[in-house]
């Protein structure tokens, strides 16, 4: 019994080590978000102040590392199917008096507070960094101030 568990432990360590010894994926047949080509909006090219561009340049590649699926923090899923409905006009779970995205009012949109690091609750996003540069946040601000259209 004991020997079996020692072997199991050894095998677990060795297999974890072998798997972890690899490098990153080659990316063959994938877009910059690691999804099969043609599955979503093309994230290549410069980002613009439109929802689809923000989705493919920010939400999908960066935010969905955590904010996706059944365990998304704060219940906020930012995948391409759910993000708009969960952001625009929806009260923040951390500060319910603020909308996550308040159309026409970037200054009072909680997403901007979280991205710029002056949120009243919790950590700046993306959690642990690297944080978005000013130009990228500026485009998200512009999208919100223009009415946060889909």
């Amino acid at each position, binding site marked *: 019994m004991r020997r079996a568990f*020692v072997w199991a432990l050894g095998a677990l360590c060795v297999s974890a080590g072998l798997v972890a010894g690899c490098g990153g994926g*080659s990316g063959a*047949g994938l877009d*910059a978000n690691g999804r099969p080509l043609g599955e979503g909006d093309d994230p290549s090219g410069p980002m613009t102040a439109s929802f689809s561009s923000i989705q493919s340049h920010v939400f999908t590649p960066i935010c969905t590392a*955590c904010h996706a699926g059944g*365990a998304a*923090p704060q219940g906020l899923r930012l995948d391409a*199917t759910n993000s708009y409905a969960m952001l625009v006009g929806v009260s923040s779970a951390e500060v319910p008096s603020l909308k996550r995205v308040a159309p026409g009012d970037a200054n009072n949109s909680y997403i901007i507070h979280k991205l710029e690091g002056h949120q009243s609750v919790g950590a700046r996003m993306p959690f*642990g960094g*690297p944080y978005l540069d000013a130009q990228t946040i500026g485009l998200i601000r512009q999208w919100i101030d223009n009415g946060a259209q889909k």
Partner: protein
Amino acid sequence: MKAARLLMGLALTLLLSAAAHAEPYLAIRAGLKCVACHVNPTGGGLRNMVGNAFVQGSIAANAPPELLQGWNGSLLDDHLRIGGDFRTATTRTSVSGRPTSTIGGTEQTRLYADVQVIKDYLGAYLDQQVAPGKSERQEAYVRLSTPGLGWYAKAGQFYLPFGWRLQDNLAFVRQLSGVSMTVPDKGLELGHESDEWSIQLVRSNGPGNKGTTTGHQTTAQAIWMQPWGRVGAAAAQVKSTAGNRQAYGLFAGTTTGTVAWLAEIDMVSDAGYPEGTRRQYATLLEANWLMRQGHNLKLTSEYLDPDRNVAHDNKVRYSLVYEYTPVAFIQLRAGYRHFGGIPQNAIDNRRQSFVELHGLF
């Protein structure tokens, strides 16, 4: 004058803060259970009397200042125990094709308290994050137990038990499992602690079930303790209007000479994705070399397959971290992380170097 005030503020913060990081390798190295050193049966957070003695005598390179020797966090005949945690860090990130960025500041300041209303039977625990930003409750629960924690129940808000409770909340296994020391949940935990076993069963809301998303989560974990190390298994099932999710984890730890090893494999199947169910897995292998008392060198290798149905999309993360604990109340950490991912995504191939100061009291 301003510098003196800053120094005084830092010193005061350190004096008011207590180290309460979850570092499972310390338990592996010492052959102790999490509950041996922490008030929380599943580890992390406020330390108990043994934990305070352990950090002073077995972790730090030097004895603490005379004034602080013997500090064990206990007040009012052990009816009240207090502590805290302060972390500040500076991180430099390099992403190909972009300017290098450096960010720094307080990562967190937490205060802990545990009140034993009826000693060994009934207690209440609080973990409050007071910085940065507005004060935010992390854990707050009532604990009912038999003496020696043979059996216990926790009700309230707490971190779920799933795999190694790492200090590094951004480890792939913590990110994928959705269980870390930044994501508390509300529910009821039943647990059993014996010489060989540590077992937990939790029924909770599910961290992702908020707002219009409803459901619940069931989490179970068992750890088998042996003189040569320990092996654990964990499972979590989320029922959610956003899509059901199953997570399974296997983890183990042992020592070879002066090296303490941790390994974990997590597998997740999640129906909450646009294309349907996505299956993912992540691994962790960590080696901690005790160079000499107070000096630990940590080498970590991680792997993440974000979608098993998609080829060539895996990510890796390698870390080398040096931890120096000059005295029981301060720890300095310096490290380098190398990320690897698909070449189309520069951020997934970033490099990070960092220095951290932890207040340990």
